[in-house]
């Protein structure tokens, strides 16, 4: 009798135990909350800006920690990682098993490399299992972004894509006051733009007086592909297929797209006519020399990030230019490079941004996913992006938000607190009209009309990047930095070459690019694309 009782008890225990084990993904999660406090660590960028607050312990982290603890009984700890050496530091952390539970990076091949070493957690089963607890995450990112990186063959999801909400890229800027002085209309075609540059060059004395020898009709930087995007893209055939766009799309400046060479040839022609700043290849990223020349008023036109002259308030180009030159000086955005179909085509990226991944050492996948959900809820991210009323922003009559500069412990360390809102990049107040108006308000020292114009032009006639998932492309691994450098070298050297040497220089550099791995990537992409989608 006792034996039987014992047997029943044992059986009951086994059943109970196995049911617990069956939900072994997470016991202890009851009614949307954990029964025991869980701990997770989250990566946070450390920008070390002077006057900034410690990124792992400040007003915002207090807010997040409090929210997570109250809502889910999860303790959050932030692990600061220096922004500029992020790759090296994260790598050390991963190697030692010290990485935070939630990591963020811009480079997917990096994640893939780690995943192939077994260092990354596959999110697919957890996303399916806990979908019902993640309404905000799925609501914000949608199936598109969450499953953007799902491998079609194995179904693994190594990383989730954050949402690029404000998808704006490049604009072409010209000096409004110089156009007026020379009696020129805003350029609407390539020819008009060129003539405008020549007019700047030939009228240097009129425009700059005694600084005439410092005239720079058109300025660019070593990052030729980014800084001449509108021009070069206008040479790309309008009817480029999706297939070509992707197969030749490894390079993030689109070097391999059809007819790219001719766009660069145009730049070479301009350079040899003396229309381009001669020192452009010398200065690396972040160097302020070119900016200073623009602020000093020597530059007539340039292409850059869509709002570049208007950023940074008092330190920005717009305000500084006015200080140096006068009240009428300003840069306006123009549209003047139609492609072969007469359309002012802009090529924008797909709506993806940073990739969020969990290292294999993450023991709390549910808690981590709940963190992502928390940070994606409109209420929380709105607060993170605009802060407290009266402290970080004021509300206009129409509801638009204007940000105020804040110093001290409530300071916002990164633009719109992007370092904390890891699932979204770009201001989102919930209402697109309100958001657009708020954005226009948030350039201190700049009239809204300039912003509105820039905002509109930069995404006019946009063609967006597409998602093609055909599994890993082996040829791509580890090639990003090396090939980008080759591309930059090729473009810079091609532009400064003598016109008769252009083809030779281009071909030599281009062949080197292909031979060093570019061709292998194209071939593999083509093969896998055709295998999956047939010959489209």
């Amino acid at each position, binding site marked *: 009798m006792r034996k039987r009782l014992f047997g029943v008890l044992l059986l009951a225990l086994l059943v109970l135990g196995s049911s617990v084990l069956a939900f072994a993904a997470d016991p202890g999660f009851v009614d949307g909350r954990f029964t025991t406090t869980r701990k997770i660590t989250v990566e946070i960028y450390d920008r070390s800006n002077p006057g900034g607050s410690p990124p792992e312990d400040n007003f915002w982290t207090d807010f997040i920690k409090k929210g997570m603890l109250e809502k889910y009984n999860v303790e959050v700890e932030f692990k600061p990682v220096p922004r500029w050496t992020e*790759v*090296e530091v994260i*790598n050390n952390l*991963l*190697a030692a098993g010290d990485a935070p539970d939630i990591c963020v990076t811009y480079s997917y091949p*990096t994640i893939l*490399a*780690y995943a192939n*070493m*077994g*260092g990354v957690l596959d999110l697919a089963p957890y996303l399916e299992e806990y979908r019902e607890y993640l309404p905000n995450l799925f609501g914000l990112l949608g199936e598109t972004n969450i499953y953007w990186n799902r491998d079609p063959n194995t179904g693994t999801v190594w990383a989730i894509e954050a949402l690029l909400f404000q998808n704006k890229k490049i604009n072409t800027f010209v000096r409004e006051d110089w156009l007026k002085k020379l009696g020129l209309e805003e350029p609407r075609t390539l020819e008009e733009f060129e003539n405008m540059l020549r007019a700047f060059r030939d009228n240097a004395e009129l425009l700059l007086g005694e600084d005439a020898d410092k005239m720079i009709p058109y300025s660019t930087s*070593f990052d030729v592909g980014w800084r001449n995007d509108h021009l070069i893209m206008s040479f790309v055939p309008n009817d480029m297929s999706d297939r070509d766009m992707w197969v030749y799309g490894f390079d993030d400046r689109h070097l391999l797209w059809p007819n790219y060479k001719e766009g660069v040839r145009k730049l070479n022609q301009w350079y040899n006519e003396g229309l381009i*700043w*001669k*020192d452009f*290849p*010398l*200065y*690396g990223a972040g*160097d302020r*020399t070119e900016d200073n*020349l623009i602020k000093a008023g020597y530059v007539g036109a340039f292409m850059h990030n869509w709002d570049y002259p208007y950023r940074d308030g008092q330190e920005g180009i717009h305000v500084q230019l006015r200080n140096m030159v006068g009240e009428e000086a300003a840069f306006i955005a123009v549209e003047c490079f139609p492609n072969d179909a007469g359309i002012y085509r802009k090529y924008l990226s797909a709506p993806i941004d940073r990739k969020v991944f969990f290292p*294999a050492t993450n023991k709390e996948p549910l808690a981590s996913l709940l963190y992502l959900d928390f940070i994606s809820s409109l209420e929380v991210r709105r607060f993170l992006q605009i802060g407290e009323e009266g402290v970080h922003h004021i509300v206009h009559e129409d509801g638009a938000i204007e940000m105020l500069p804040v110093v001290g412990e409530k300071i916002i360390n990164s633009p719109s607190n992007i370092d904390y809102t890891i699932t979204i990049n770009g201001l989102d107040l919930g209402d697109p009209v309100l958001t657009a108006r708020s954005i226009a308000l948030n350039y201190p020292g700049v009239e809204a009309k300039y912003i509105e114009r820039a905002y509109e032009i930069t995404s006019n006639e946009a063609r967006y990047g597409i998602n093609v998932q055909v599994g890993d492309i082996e040829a791509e*691994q*580890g*090639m*990003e*930095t*090396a090939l980008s*450098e080759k591309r*930059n*070298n090729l*473009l*810079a*050297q091609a532009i*400064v070459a003598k016109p008769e040497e252009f083809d030779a220089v281009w071909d030599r550099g281009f062949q*080197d690019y292909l*031979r*060093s791995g570019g061709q292998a990537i194209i071939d593999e992409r083509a093969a896998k694309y055709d295998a999956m989608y047939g010959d489209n």
Partner: protein
Amino acid sequence: MKRVANINPRRIINYLRKYWSLYLMLSIPIAYFIVFRYIPMTYIQIAFKRYSIVQSPWEMPLANNHGFEYFLKAFRNLDFLYALRNTLLLNFLDLVIGFPAPIILALLLNELTFPRFKRFTQSVVYLPHFLSWIIIAGLAKQLFAPTSGMINILLNRLGFESIPFLNDPTHWVFTYVFLGIWRNMGWNAIIYLAALTNINPELYEAAAIDGANRWQNIWYITLPGLRPTIFTMLILSLGHILSSELDRPYALSNPLVNSVSNVLSIFVYRYGIRGLQFSLTTAVGLFQSVVCVIFLVAANALAKRFGERGIW
């Protein structure tokens, strides 16, 4: 030349009694070397294995080609070969032009007759050493840029053409070397200056009595006095012939001169570190170390031939 069975116990005890303190003293540095240099060295095996973040080096599987996969990968990569050539070229020029510079400077300072001026010069010439290469690169661009560089603006005003200090490969090499000299000359001279104080002043007095002039002093007294130091520094420099720091070429390079500015450190950074190929990084590092050791041993043997003590 081992003497046969002279294991006299009394000798051993005497020896130990005399030298125990020396062994005690040495034990600390040796322990340091074992822990902090030799134990990490066991990780060099990564060069022969397929790197994996989640495994310890002992567990990692052996790479293809009996572990030489990454060495072969490096040598088949044209970029690696160019990087090798550039590293050798730049280091060689640094050696030939840059090695004598601090010695000459030390001699110059030694000959200065105005003591206050001498001290002031000594204090000033090592200043550039404290600037990081990022800052120096910024200054160099301010001076040498083709159109906005001050030197070229001056040249243009005088009617000359701009000199492409930084944007033409050949010119760039020399700018690179001379900036290195400018930065390190004063600092490296310190060692020679310290060694100069070690030379017996009586020798100079004796030479003065014999009517020697300045140059004879230098040739017969000063230089020989510096000989051990010069040889030591030379051997050590030769041992670094293939080494490659990242800061200096990285800060000074630009897309127009990559044919000469891409050196091993940049190759390792781009392919190994940013490309996350750690086995490749370690393999290249191992290759560099082996070559350096070969040069070191050769240089040391050569020095001994010249009658110098050598490094060991």
